[in-house]
């Protein structure tokens, strides 16, 4: 909880600084855009949170986004499939990818890093193959569907600002995810096995099935993200669509309180973490006019965040030891 407040405070501080330093930051257009991007990346972050909670990692998210984001317009406009069939196909592929990852990790005891690293290369390569590296897009069609990503919900009483539609998607996904993680027995199982898989197994929990579930959730949400991203920008280039997005998602989860050792994670945290990364990126571009150093800034901030967290933890342990010694 303290961690959440800390990261939220940091987000507020960066926002305040940006509001003071840059006029364009506080424009309605910029804020709307930030919220929309946060919502889209937030969905990915929530997905990877489930995997990180189990102590695993998913490096293939960006490539799943590429596969789905290019696959959907390709099926619709090149293969002329119907909309429901195309949507069902891309989502089925996403679920299947998660299932494959989970089974390889639990049945063959392969390391998550290797399995999903191979996935990272495999899915982008396949996409570039079937699209022949050509940009695919919706052109002027599917306006109704695109509302999901580009639509806006007016706020009564406020002029010049409307809530982007993906925010609604994020809220629904986040509430469902938070309830799953914090209120169901399965969420507790994930946290327990991420902390100590043996103890969970000895307590009668089917740990393999829970791990598979985590990878399925992650890939499914990556697939949903892929659909939303391509609807947002209207067209996708297989070469770089979704490139590095897994790193944003993982960084957001870590900033938001996940431990890569497993057993810890917060849905609200990952959303705040996502927002922080995107606001930082935005601020770097607007204030310095050097968008080429954005990665350096983001990297430095995340590093500072985890170092602070570790130092705080050590301080707490030392204080506890001192207190017990005094007793």
């Amino acid at each position, binding site marked *: 909880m303290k961690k959440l407040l800390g990261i939220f405070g940091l987000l507020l501080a960066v926002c305040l600084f940006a509001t003071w330093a840059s006029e364009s930051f506080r424009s309605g257009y910029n804020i709307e855009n930030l919220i929309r991007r946060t919502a889209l990346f937030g969905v990915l972050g929530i997905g990877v949170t489930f995997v990180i909670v189990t102590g695993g990692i998913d490096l293939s998210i960006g490539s799943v986004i590429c596969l789905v984001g290019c696959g959907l317009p390709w099926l619709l406009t090149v293969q002329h499939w119907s909309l429901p069939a195309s949507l069902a196909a891309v989502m089925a592929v996403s679920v299947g990818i998660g299932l494959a990852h989970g089974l390889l990790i639990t049945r063959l005891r392969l390391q998550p890093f290797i399995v999903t690293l191979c996935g990272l290369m495999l899915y982008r390569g396949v996409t570039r193959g079937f699209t022949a590296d050509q940009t695919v897009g919706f052109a002027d069609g599917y306006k109704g569907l695109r509302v999901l990503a580009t639509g806006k919900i007016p706020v009564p009483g406020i002029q010049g600002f409307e809530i982007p539609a993906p925010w609604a998607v994020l809220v629904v996904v986040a509430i469902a995810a938070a309830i799953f993680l914090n209120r169901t027995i399965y969420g507790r199982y994930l946290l*327990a096995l991420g902390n*100590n898989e043996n103890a969970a*197994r*000895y307590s*009668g*929990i089917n740990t393999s099935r829970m791990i598979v579930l985590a990878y399925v959730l992650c890939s499914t949400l990556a697939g949903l993200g892929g659909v939303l991203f391509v609807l947002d920008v209207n067209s996708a280039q297989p070469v770089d669509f979704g490139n590095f997005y897994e790193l944003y998602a993982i960084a957001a989860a870590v900033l938001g309180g996940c431990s890569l050792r497993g057993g810890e994670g917060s849905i609200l945290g990952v959303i705040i973490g996502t927002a922080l990364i995107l606001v930082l990126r935005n601020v770097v571009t607007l204030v310095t006019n050097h968008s080429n150093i954005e990665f350096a800034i983001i990297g430095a901030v995340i590093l500072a965040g985890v170092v602070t967290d570790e130092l705080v933890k050590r301080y707490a342990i030392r204080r506890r*030891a001192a207190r*017990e010694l005094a007793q």
Partner: protein
Amino acid sequence: MPPVLLEARSLTKSFPGVRALKGVSLTVSRGEVVAVIGENGAGKSTLMKILAGVQTCDSGEIRIDGVPAPLQSVEEALGLGIALIHQELNLAQNLDVAANLFLGREPRRWGLIDSGRLRREAGQFLQAVGLDVSPDTRVGSLAIGQQQLVEIAKALSTQARVLIMDEPTSSLSAGEAENLFRVIDDLRARGVSIVYISHRLGEVTRLADRVVVLRDGENSGELARHEISHAAMVRLMVGRDLSQFYPHQPHARTETVLEVDGLRTPAHPTHPLTFQIRVGEMVGLAGLVGAGRTEVLLALFGVQPAVGGTLKIGGQPLCAQTPAQAIAAGLALVPEDRKREGLVLGMPVRENLSLASLRQDQRRGFRDTAREETLSAEMIQSLRIKTPNDRQVVQFLSGGNQQKVVIGKWLALKPKVLLLDEPTRGIDIGAKQEIYRLMEELADQGVAIVFASSEMEEILGMSDRVLVMHEGRITGELSRHQLSEEAILHLATGTASPESHP
């Protein structure tokens, strides 16, 4: 009287939740074998780690040759001639004997390893411990007893004057142990001092010039050579007579609850095991390390599913392929290593207590949070778990209270058979007795209890009946009136006379 070599005075050491040492003193003279004994949790291991520089003490003084030596690191201790041989061997299995002996201290020429000298010197130290293998042998291909000798040779190669041996025979066969004792006699004759930690009192009687007994982090007494006897040692270790310490009451019931017929564990598939456990009966599983006791419990519980045989619980056949199936049939397991298998250390007490019963208490997948709360409050009260509240992270509880949490986890499921593997390992003596009382209460309520233990006193004190294992077989069964340390050890080492087989 040979000069005092090592002297430790009033050492104290605390860990989160435990005061491991509360002012322990120890002196060791040149060429003396001092046995340090005590129940688990008495502070033996902590004392040894401090003497070997693995840990530092909070207060107290260590002198070597009369000179104060604040041991801050293993290197420093080695430099002063103190070497620790851990209970678990610390050898690189993939390297050869010579490389292991001089790991980190390789003789060098032009910055490269001087392998000729390495082999020569290794050979000398191997000879000193009577180990007849080539220095080129890969350590992984040696028997455990031989690896133990490699460890000793390694310690000698550091010019050690004090060798600390922590439970050196815990994984040795009787023959290997006898060989080790000869090496120790030989070292003593050459003026090397030995601090010998063991809870096998027979060995201590065989070897020690003097016995130092620890209890609950304090010195509880010392015995000179002529005073060493089994009864005297037990009295000092336990602090009272055994009959008072173990709350055991015989349980006379007749219905069988667990029938095991021809069970074959993956570790010993050629030895089928058959036994029955009655309602409310307390059965001890005795045997040396590696006898296959843990494997039996893990097979019954479905962690390492049996490869053959049939199992009936309350007359119902069970084929446990996973712990979930075993739990559903009414089994529960308190595993050997509570930190790795029993507890989710980073989670609070409440979450740990409810972990096994979440499924039973669920409401369509949702956790019943009210039930979780009442359950943990009940368990904390009835098991007398000492914790500030149930939000306390279980890692910060003392060993005894952690063990109570592991047991409490199962009680809500009302198991028919409770399996315990080393139920009191690493917990202090007060908590130990509470665990025994708890086992006794459960047996009174009709829970069948099967516990594996390496502590002879515990087996003798708590069992209605004892099954003794040796190398994967059950070599004998002793009922309460037949129990004696000697009878168990005979069966456990496979040297029993034929008439003691049932």
